[in-house]
């Protein structure tokens, strides 16, 4: 990977990686640190990373650093109001969206990462499996379970919202 290709990766993938991390840990500064360290690692290993694999490499590195960060800091996900400034996140005001995000935040970290990688980044089961070091069937099963959990929570919240 050339220097120019690396800078193209910054332009194209930095926002996605940041969104994925900040939605998971819900802490902007830690998410920024993780994104920065992921890109530093990409820069160091740019000679071994092919440009077409750069996005997957970035998400893989960021995901594992996020897991390490959660383990070492032993931080539970913060509440949405205190952790994420409203200026940085364009929030949809729809009530259903807020309910969905609350439900997503209540998922376990693996299910949450699966949903975010699938919905935000549009990765296939196989790509998610590579990033999260899981098998394809595990991704499929875990993600379907997460969907059903979200569906049930949305169904439970819906009468309250209405």
């Amino acid at each position, binding site marked *: 990977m050339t220097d120019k290709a690396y800078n193209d990766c910054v332009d194209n993938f930095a926002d996605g990686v940041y969104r994925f991390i*900040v939605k998971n840990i819900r802490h902007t500064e830690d998410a920024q640190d993780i994104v920065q360290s992921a890109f530093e690692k990409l820069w160091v290993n740019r000679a071994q990373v092919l440009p077409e694999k750069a996005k997957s490499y970035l998400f893989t590195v960021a995901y594992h650093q996020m897991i390490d960060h959660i383990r070492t800091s032993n931080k539970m996900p913060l509440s949405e109001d205190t952790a994420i400034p409203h200026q940085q996140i364009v929030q949809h005001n729809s009530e259903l969206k807020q309910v969905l995000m609350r439900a997503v935040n209540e998922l376990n970290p693996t299910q949450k990462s699966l949903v975010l990688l699938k919905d935000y980044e549009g990765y296939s089961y196989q790509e998610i499996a590579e990033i999260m070091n899981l098998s394809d069937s595990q991704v499929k099963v875990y993600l379907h379970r997460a969907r059903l959990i979200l569906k049930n929570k949305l169904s439970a919240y819906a009468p309250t919202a209405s």
Partner: protein
Amino acid sequence: MQLNESTYETIFLLYIDNELSPKERLEVEAFILDNPSYALEMEELKATVISSEQLQYPFKENLKQQDWEATYSTILKTNMEEIPGLSTPFKNGLKKEAAKEGIVLKPFGFSQQKFTYAAIAACLIVFIGYQQLTKTPVSNSIVSNSLANKSNKVLVPNISTESTKSDATVISNSNKQELVNNIKPITKTKKEILIQEKLNTSELEIAKTNKNVSIAIAEPTRNNSILNNQAIITKLPSSYNNPVTIDALATETSSVDKNTDLIRDEKVTTSYELIDTEDPNRAIFIANFEIDGAAFRGITRRVSALLKRNKSEKEK
């Protein structure tokens, strides 16, 4: 893909995860149209999908690195355009004068490379010659003497290069016995000297006259009293035809050569190693080739130095 009550949920989840092929997606949509009761189920699952959300990383520019390749190429391009060419005097100052032909050394008319090879060959010749000179000379008579000890025959060595096959003759035991009987050993040293002188003069005469005369020297035993049935003819003229002819001088010179052979025998034991074979008529002698280690190292050093110098000159 079969859509029914037991499989619809999994297939719907695959549908919203966009893991179905276009054809399968059409089948699912057709199934929902045919079964409107499943439409609500599909809508509830679709609601679990998080809509895309724009979230920008605020320090994106800090992550970028200097594109050194582009920077260098730009700098190089601009500098090449801006920097004028070097002045002619400066260029002339960089030039080197070509060596004149008269100065080029060609020792003995050879080129440098050929001269190096010739020097190496000369060193090797000198080294081998030195080794040969410092080595103990082994006469043909001693070798043939040892051979005669093994076999019951006497080998006559060829001295002259012009000698024909008839010069190398084997003397039978009966003839040898005659030779031996005529030989009287002399032990006095003064006589030996006189005999040696006579022998030398007779050899000269023989060489001058080139007559059909030969000198046979029979080796006595250690105690110099009894002779075996072994005799060695040390020297024969090139025109030698009669192997039985013995000069009277031979009887006197035998003891002289005996002493010298004894001395040589001692050296032979150090120079040759005798290997017994099953065949009594055969003996194998292996010569020890001794090399002076210091002299050999010196020569190899000189040769390697010459090669290195030649290589460095070539590289220059």
